């Protein structure tokens, strides 16, 4: 076995891994290795050819590949070691990393710190339990996106899309522009998880209907998909008998949610959070295993890559601190808890004592859309801070920066809730 030693191993060369590696380097760590299973860096961004990335971080609107290339150049300039076509098979709690590729064979890397940045995967037809036949022509939207945008294959001609999150909307436009007929986008919820902008520019522009509170209840076709049965659903998302109708199509794209890809993390003994599906971390994005960090979609699913970058810079920086002599801990851990209409908050706790820090960013998602809201931060019963937003929705992550000086030694928990303005 090919044995090597590195100070820092980054698992995954998407935007999260790249930004984390870059920041760790800039903080003085020189001995860094990025392991990426694809033939190139950039992660999922390479297939997200649409624009809409980078407004927060770069102040200009970029496409996915443009955004990725910037960070790829940054890590290359810094001379960070990179191994492509390399699959990480195991990370142990002792931070031994086993990875494999065709040229080096099995790699056994003794690392001092590990940053997990494996991204996420898509939920499947089975995860949402659609009965029927099992023909060709049912794809997850991301798989179809890779086929159409990178591999140069169009999976089908007559398309139904289930799920109106941004990926579903973006794929509706892509399939239409490339000459396929998009029959409809169906959404089981009473609201879309996608940006208004995408509804307008991906559906309305091309007269693609968006049907709310409808879902696919059966798949038909022996060899290739022939049709789907669609039904309206009630407020508990249960199909309403009698409302069924059929749409003929040869392709069904599923855009029904993403799941952080944490098989490696679990094997390393990293504790998971039930709601995010990612590791439980402190504000430095360190997991329960000292020296193992996580950032990006592996931690919680982000809609905007800019936040991935911000979060990964934090992880990279803390990993560097860890390698350079350790992190000072607060006397008392502060739990960060979701309150009313808050689904989850990352980080789940604040544990570090960092001198030069000005802000601790809390990332959260609301449970249901709401207009004219106040987001409140409490310590116990005491309100510390609030901010107003015109509108919040589950599809868009909310960032809430907490000034360091507000965090005091006697706190043991923080809570955030989202309520109607004035309540």
């Amino acid at each position, binding site marked *: 076995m090919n044995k090597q030693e590195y100070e820092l191993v980054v698992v995954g060369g998407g935007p999260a891994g790249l930004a984390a590696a870059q920041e760790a380097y800039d903080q003085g760590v020189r001995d860094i290795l990025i392991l990426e*299973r694809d033939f190139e860096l950039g992660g999922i961004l390479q297939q997200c050819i649409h624009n809409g990335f980078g407004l927060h971080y770069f102040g200009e609107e970029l496409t996915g590949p443009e955004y990725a290339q910037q960070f790829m150049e940054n890590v290359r300039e810094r001379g960070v070691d990179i191994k492509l076509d390399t699959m990480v098979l*195991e990370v142990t709690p002792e931070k031994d990393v086993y990875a494999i590729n065709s040229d080096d*064979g099995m790699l056994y890397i003794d690392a001092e710190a590990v940053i997990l940045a494996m991204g996420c*995967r898509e939920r499947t037809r*089975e995860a949402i339990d659609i009965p029927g036949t099992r023909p060709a022509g049912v794809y997850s939207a991301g798989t179809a996106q890779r086929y159409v945008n990178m591999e*140069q294959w169009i*999976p*089908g001609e007559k398309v139904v899309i289930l799920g109106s999150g941004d990926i579903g909307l973006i794929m509706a436009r892509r399939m239409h522009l490339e000459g396929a007929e998009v029959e409809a986008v169906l959404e089981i919820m009473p609201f879309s998880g996608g940006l208004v902008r995408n509804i307008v520019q991906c559906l309305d522009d091309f007269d693609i209907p968006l049907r709310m509170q409808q879902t696919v209840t059966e798949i*038909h076709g022996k*060899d290739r998909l022939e049709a789907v049965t669609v039904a309206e659903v009630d407020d508990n998302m249960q199909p309403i008998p009698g409302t069924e109708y059929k749409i003929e199509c040869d392709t069904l794209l599923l855009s029904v949610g993403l799941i952080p890809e944490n098989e490696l993390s679990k094997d390393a003994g990293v504790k998971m959070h039930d709601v995010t599906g990612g590791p439980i971390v402190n504000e430095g994005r360190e997991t329960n295993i000292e020296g193992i960090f996580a950032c990006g979609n592996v931690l919680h699913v982000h809609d905007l890559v800019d936040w991935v970058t911000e979060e990964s810079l934090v992880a990279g920086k803390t990993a560097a601190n860890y390698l350079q002599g350790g992190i000072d801990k607060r006397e008392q851990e502060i739990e960060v808890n979701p309150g009313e209409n808050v689904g989850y908050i990352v980080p789940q706790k604040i544990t570090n004592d960092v001198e030069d820090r000005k802000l601790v960013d809390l990332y959260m998602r609301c449970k249901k859309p709401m207009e004219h809201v106040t987001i409140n931060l409490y310590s116990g019963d005491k309100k510390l801070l609030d901010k107003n937003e015109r509108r919040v929705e589950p599809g868009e992550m909310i960032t809430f920066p907490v000034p360091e000086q507000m965090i005091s030694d006697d706190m043991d928990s923080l809570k955030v809730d989202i309520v109607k303005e004035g309540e």
Partner: protein
Amino acid sequence: MKDKTDILIIGGGVTGCFAARELSRYDLDITLVEKEPSLCTGTTKANTALIHAGFNADPDKLKGRLNMRGNQLYHERIQHELDVPIEWLGALVVAKEEEKLPKLEELLEKGQENGVPDLEIVKGDDIYDLEPHLADDAIAALHAPTAGIVNPFELTVALANNAAMNGADVYLEAGVEDIEDKGETKLVKTAKGDIEANIVINAAGLYADKIANMVGIDKFEITPRRGEYYLYDKQADIDVQTTVFPVPTKVSKGIVVTPTDEGNVLIGPNAEVIESVENKSTTREGLDEVLNGAQKTIPELSKRNVIKEFAGLRPAITETGDFLIEASDEVPGFINVAGIQSPGLASAPAIAEKVVGIVKEEIGGLREDPDFDPNYEGPPKFRHMSHEEQAKLVEEDKNYGQIICRCESVTKGEILEAIREPVGARTVNDIKRRVRPGSGRCQGGFCEPKVVNILSEELGIPEDEVVLESKESKLLRERTKEPLLNEEEVSDNE
């Protein structure tokens, strides 16, 4: 395709492949034809995969006798000869009500009569030692330690390959369209050409009645009875140690909860008589019935962590409710192996033994082939190896350094091996059944494009001709830009 053979077997399920393998022990020319592009697409691909111990089998029926014998042969021979996952987990039939106890006793007696070894009724904590997460109101259970599970796909593929290694010819996409009875021989017309056979063995599963009709036999009819399933993620943390049955009632055998050979949990099947032998679709009602039934024995089951749902069809002869394995009186040289419903898999080695006996009688003696090699080894299983073993494997062949399926850690090497076997894989699902890419929690979202690409390269066909399962199940339509360029041409011509 060759034009003559001693024995022609119709059907590449476990029945046909087992017969081919057992007959290839003898000095005979064996040919197997299968209508689909891959083996194991019929009933053998969707079942509970149990090697039943035989306690529930009716000793008066053929299927009862063959079940016991089949189980024995798996223990004594098959598990040693073929590199196929078989595990003897044992089965538990769980009673939760007093009034079910007599039935449990009855099963015990029937089992003992059938010669099933080591059966016992366990009570109290002993039940939970065997199955810790069982519903907490179990009062007694019949324990059958000789019950096992098998991987039906790998078994069928191993049998076909072992038969091929020993000289049998296997033709895929060679559906039988008609049979002409020429007295001494039968002229079998297939999609791949005509072949003249001395003996024809009909192991066509759900289509066995149609094949029999081709030579004028209409003494039986196959009625499909559908069973539906849910399969759980390996990582789902559902603790099931044995195959768990409820006590059977007159109407239903009840829903089984069992681990698979790969450590997934499988629940099912219900039983519903349906019209079409093609209708393998799952239904809302069926799946709900399966989950409700399974929760009675293992309450922690839910829809969470389900990674696959599927349905299989039992090819039943309802009149007798039994297997039909016999040389036809009406048509000499034509052997029916039909009605092979459950426990067809458990009985498969014994069915093959019986078929060999019938052939022997028909021909009047068989000569053993001294070169017959009963052993078969499939592609290596990267996922089950230690890192040291994995390291060695890559050193020998670089293709084992390329992981194609992330969920199941399947390497390119294994996929190439599956394609290059004597009876090689040709479809995406065939590769999935043999070496598992796409069998994990992302169901091919990540690896399917890569598998398509490997198949295209290995078979020398464009990617849009790669199919999922059947010949018509193409995965891709056109190259990106082609529709736009064609549109352009159309409007130019207008």
